[in-house]
């Protein structure tokens, strides 16, 4: 099983591939759950979203991963979201349960 590998590939609807640390990707419980299925075997997860959105999401995942331990203190930089993507991101975040 390739689920032991440390990276997963997230594929956007317009076929952009993002290779993300599994640990980071699994912040999304949807991605985490998918590991028991076919996606776990292929290491590839196709997502129904555009590349720019997915890019932003991956950025957020890393941002979240990096600062997760400091969340309590509040002493962390703000995460910038391109305004035009905001609404779309909101929907996708809900979808991925981030």
């Amino acid at each position, binding site marked *: 099983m390739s689920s032991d590998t440390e990276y997963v590939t997230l594929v956007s609807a317009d076929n952009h591939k993002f290779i993300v640390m599994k640990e980071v990707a699994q912040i999304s419980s949807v991605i985490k759950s*998918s590991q028991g299925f076919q*996606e776990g075997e292929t290491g590839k997860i*196709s997502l129904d979203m555009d590349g720019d959105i997915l890019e932003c999401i991956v950025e957020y995942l890393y941002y979240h991963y990096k600062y997760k331990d400091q*969340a309590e203190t509040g002493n962390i930089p703000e*995460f910038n979201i391109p305004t035009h993507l905001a609404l779309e991101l909101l*929907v996708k975040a809900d*979808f991925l349960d*981030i």
Partner: protein
Amino acid sequence: MIPAGNRRSKIRPPRKSLVSSSLESSTTDPTVDFEKSWSILSNAIVQIQNKSVSNLSYEQLYRKAYILVLRKYGGKLYENVATIITLHLLKRRDYLLTIYNEEEFMKATLVEWNEHLQSMKFISDVLMYLNRVYVKEHKKLLIYDLGIQLFKDNVIKYNDDQVGKRIVDTVIQEITKSRNGEVITTNMYITKLINMLELLVESGSGDIQFGENYYQSVFEPAFLASSETFFYKLSSEFASYNLGTKYIQSTSRFIKEEEGRINFYMPESMYPKLNELMNNIMIKDRIDDILALPYESQGLSYLLRPVVVNVVDGKNESYHIPDLKILYELIGRIDDEYDLLRLRLKEHIKQQGEELPQQVRSILEKANGDKKLNPALFAIKWIETVLKYHDEFLKIHEQAFDSNSSVSLTITYAMREFINAPPTNRKDANSVNGPELLSVYMDYHIKQSAKTAPSKDIESLDSRDYVDVFIERSIKFLRFIKDKDAFEAYYANHFAKRFLSSKSGSQIISSNNKMGIDIEELLLSKLGEEMGTTSLDKIIKMNKDIKLSKDITNDWKKLITQSTKKDLIELELKICNVNDWPKSMVKDYKAFSNDENNETSFIWSKQLRPTIREFEEFWFSGKKNDNKSLYWSPKFGSMDLRISYPSRTYEINLATYAGIIMLLFAPQSTNADGSLVSAFEENKELSYEEIKELTGIPEIDLKRHLQSIAVAPRSRLLIKNPMTKDVNNSDKFKLNEKFKSPSIKVKVLTVSAASSAAANSSGEKGSSKAKTEQEEEAEEVRSNIHEGRKLEVNAAIVRIMKSRQTIKHNELIEELIKQLSNRFQPSILLIKQRIEDLIEKEYLKRDDEETNIYHYIA
């Protein structure tokens, strides 16, 4: 903007953008077809249940469910999922019921359960969005929990708990097998099945409490009920052996195994319940019967028997430590305080203790043959036996009873009870007077240590040890005695006797005596530590008298060596203050005084009179003795006489009375050259009546002492005519020319009052009279004790009243018992009498209205 800290943004997207975005993103049909999506999802669920998960694309399934939820198909989806799972489970249930082998059934059930859980996990993953949105909003069970519910309802409880009952029965069966000692192979299944049952939470309908699980609601009651039956059966089986040790051993072993079983199979919550059940049935309901089993059936009496055997017969049987230990542990399981054990122990100790006097007596009688039992020997043996008994019991206590402090208290209390047997039983051969016997014991040892000390100077260390040991034992025994006042009275009596009858004169004996006094002082200080010095007041004063007497003796010695008067005799003085010495000894102190115009007044020998006169002068000249009067008591003490018999000259030590009698036979006349004629030349013969007249010795004593010097074979200083055992009024006496003794020093032992009386019994009533003398003395000691108690109670009442002024009857009694209990056990009757007495004497009065209230009258 999503704040960074808020990891899970639950913000629901605005409907408008949602529609547009999902329309945009959904590549196929814009109008969502529920049936189509559902058929994909239901297929996937079936595949999951068939364990072929890896062919499924999660993202697609998830998105299907997501969209259905967004489209408000959540409820329908939820119901469909429940239905499809139910159908699946019913099939699995049918499969389970085709298995007949119990072990296989257990195994298969677990397989089904685990697979169901696994598939439920995947299903719940797929339906995550349903969980997150629909379930939460409608407060339904999460999909996973729904799966467990469905398993419970459609597998376990379906058709009147068909599968559930079978699981419960099977598990109980297996555990019962294990209890019966069979090795079972289903250990892991049992544990896991029980875990499963615990997960099956009741949904909270009907009379079942919400949150209770199947284990609690079904398994536990069934298991406890079957356990109860089993325990009953087992304990009656154990009991049917009718053998105490076997019962406790088997029970203890079973309990240990059962504990292991419970901990292995059951959740923690079971332990206290089953443990209580087990303890109640197997220990609490039975143990008292087991303890009460007779000796042959090895009840407690059997377990404790070796103590008496070892102590009394000096054997070395091993104690039933392991069994006693088991017993202690078993009882500890049902009672932290060990009440039952302590109660029964107490009874047994009491019973065994009450046997001890008889046992000791019979051993001594065996050793002594037919001879009469020496009371002192009995006292010694009994006290040592009792102390040894205590020691042995403490061994058991330490080894078997975990040195439990409350048990040790019980042992002490139980021993106290038999040592302080109530006086009503005293006439009984098996009852003993603890305080008196302790005093006898101490008396014996004090005398004994005085005897051995000088002859073995090298071993003085040993004799030290001997003294220490016996003092230590005495004090130990004293702690068991409740009536300390009685002990004091007896001790005072013995103390006085020791002093008054101590014989001195020769150097050895006086050093001997000193040693004796040392012991007395040592003992006094120890007793003082133990009981407080105020209660020993009298004995301490007596001791002071003894010291004073010694000083005066020395002073007198100095005086006579300086004096010109030749006819003064050395005196060993014992001057006692009548107030402090036991009444039984000093009551008739005035009877012998010369100035009393008494018919039977005692006449001192003329050889002694100058000394007595001179000493009285000397004594009254002392500054301290201004207001005191001095009385002589010839019934105590002894004399040293040097008598020249034809065979040789002997130094004879004999009682004062006997000495006075002998002095009658001393030569009175002088030869022509002024020297004394030999007594044998004079060959005086005196009749009993003459002796009586010349000495004024009371008749009973006179006969006794005449027996000592004229009948007793080893000290026959006089010849009695006719030569008979008893002394009659018509007898005549003269010096025994043929008197012979192996050593120069002769000690005349005074015939005891009892045996003198026995010898005279043929003749007169004197017998009964003499016999009562000892009893009289005992009686007096007893009445002394009684009088002393009256005073103490009075004093205590006044003390209490003074501080309280007003008190209720019951409180007063309570307080009195509390205050007096370390001295003696006051009877309620005595207390009531004393209260009446004090009311009469107007120390207190009853309340005018409430008669049970007393007021103190200052």
